[in-house]
């Protein structure tokens, strides 16, 4: 039943694209075709985009991923760490960007837990951040790493308001602001917090960021003033990524840009530590690259068609 649905959807998408292309080419010969495409109800474009995203999602279309140097750097920085090393997991995103950032957050948690690292989760982005941390804990740590003990191997420090103000304080004194964890337990009573004074004692910061406050604030107020003591890798949304490149490689060691970065990192992690039992749970980034490919191709085709019409009109105007 599902296969039939997918075939029908795929056929509809191909037919619609074909119709639009023929109309655009016809625009050079028949002016009325130009008007038809120009005045096309935008809801037809919405339908095309819906099909472009839905078909690969339903069909679980995946493509091979060739990791780029930035993803390899992120992977290698975590690989360098020894079991028991401290990693600050700064989860600065919310459900709006979960689709883009969730897969990399899952892969980061899986990779760090596989390495036996101590994970300190916190968020400064939004009061919704702790739920994102809960997702990582429930979906990865509790299912794949049941031996990971709360307070000994990982801790959820929750959300603190103040944006970069929080970073500015915790780089020199973490317990000044974090007197309790997310559940109200005093940080003095949490074993893995006992020998932690500040963020400078973390061996690496892993930041997943959707905006303000996020990667930029960690770079400006943590890694820049303390370049010898604080190292950081990050994963950001596609919109944010271009703004983060200037900080690479000194203030920011590596960057996963959007779902493409997540898919590349997943490939590296799963190649090194994956098994058949894990299924597609840790390849969600790669699964979401299917819709991205079709959607990008659709956008390119739409732009080309629109430009064909533009030039056809221009030519007619000149003639």
């Amino acid at each position: 039943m599902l296969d039939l649905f997918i075939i029908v959807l795929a056929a509809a998408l191909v037919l619609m694209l074909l119709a639009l292309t023929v109309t655009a080419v016809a625009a050079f010969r028949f002016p009325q075709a130009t008007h038809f495409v120009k005045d096309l109800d935008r809801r037809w474009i919405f339908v095309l985009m819906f099909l472009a995203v839905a078909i690969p999602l339903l069909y679980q279309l995946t493509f091979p991923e060739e990791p780029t140097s930035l993803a390899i750097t992120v992977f290698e920085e975590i690989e360098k760490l020894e079991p028991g090393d401290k990693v600050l997991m700064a989860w600065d995103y919310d459900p709006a960007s979960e689709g883009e950032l969730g897969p990399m957050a899952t892969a980061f948690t899986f990779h760090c837990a596989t390495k036996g690292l101590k994970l300190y989760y916190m968020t400064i982005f939004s009061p919704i951040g702790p739920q994102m941390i809960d997702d990582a804990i429930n979906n990865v740590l509790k299912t794949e790493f049941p031996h990971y003990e709360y307070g000994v191997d990982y801790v959820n420090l929750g959300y603190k308001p103040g944006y970069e103000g929080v970073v500015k304080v915790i780089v020199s004194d973490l317990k000044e602001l974090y007197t309790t964890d997310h559940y109200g337990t005093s940080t003095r009573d949490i074993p893995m917090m006992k020998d932690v004074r500040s963020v400078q004692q973390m061996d690496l910061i892993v930041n997943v960021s959707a905006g303000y406050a996020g990667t930029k604030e960690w770079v400006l107020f943590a890694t820049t003033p303390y370049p010898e003591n604080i190292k950081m890798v990050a994963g950001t949304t596609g919109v944010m990524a271009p703004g983060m490149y200037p900080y690479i490689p000194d203030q920011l060691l590596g960057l996963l840009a959007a779902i493409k970065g997540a898919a590349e990192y997943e490939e590296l992690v799963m190649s090194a530590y994956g098994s058949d039992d894990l299924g597609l749970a840790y390849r969600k980034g790669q699964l979401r690259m299917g819709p991205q490919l079709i959607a990008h191709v659709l956008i390119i085709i739409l732009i080309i068609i629109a430009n064909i019409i533009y030039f056809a009109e221009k030519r007619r105007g000149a003639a």
Partner: protein
Amino acid sequence: MKRLVPLWLTAIAGIVMIVSYFIPWAQGLGEVFSIWFDILAGIAFILGGGNLLQIHLKKVSDKGAGWGYSVILLVCFMTTLFVGLGKIGVHPSPQFPDESWSGVYNQSGGPFWFLYEYAFKPLTATMFAMLAFYIASAAFRAFRAKNIEAILLLGTAFIILLGRTYAGVWLTGWISDEGPFRGLRTENLSEYIMQVFNKTGTRAIIIGIALGIASTSLKVILGVDRSYLGSGED
């Protein structure tokens, strides 16, 4: 007095934060000011909530345009606030079983968790996902190769759009990844654009913004720019 006190507060806070960055003995004071800032940021949530209530209650009472949406907003806001602050349906934490409010507000299975999981999460994800439709529509209607700059932008967009997917790898996969032409493979071109053109352009913008922030901040600290205090007529 009404304007003088905020002006002095701003000047002192600004100068302390600058001095604490450059002079080691003043770092402690800078930290104290940062903690005050964090406390104020927490209190700002109350201010924000109060402001939201005030605006929408007024809209409902005036029966302004779209007042029905304001009613929905107010009901949702008050329900979430009540359920979250009151920790409704939350079991006490195992550490303090006798304290009824000791459980965490977003406990799995609780009403707040339910509101988050089945209302907030899908709604915000839907809002963000809708961008794809508008991007496609906007690309179709607005992206025209009208001049050289637009052609350059269009070409760059195509390379990045293809380079960020397997389509790019497939299109230029016939170019050897070892030889002198490896830079022409779409994925390498895309990476080159991001690492060189984007990086240099963004750096220039960041430096410009930083200089602008420094100059504006100095104006505010020295009391030259007082626009943040309002017109003073109220």
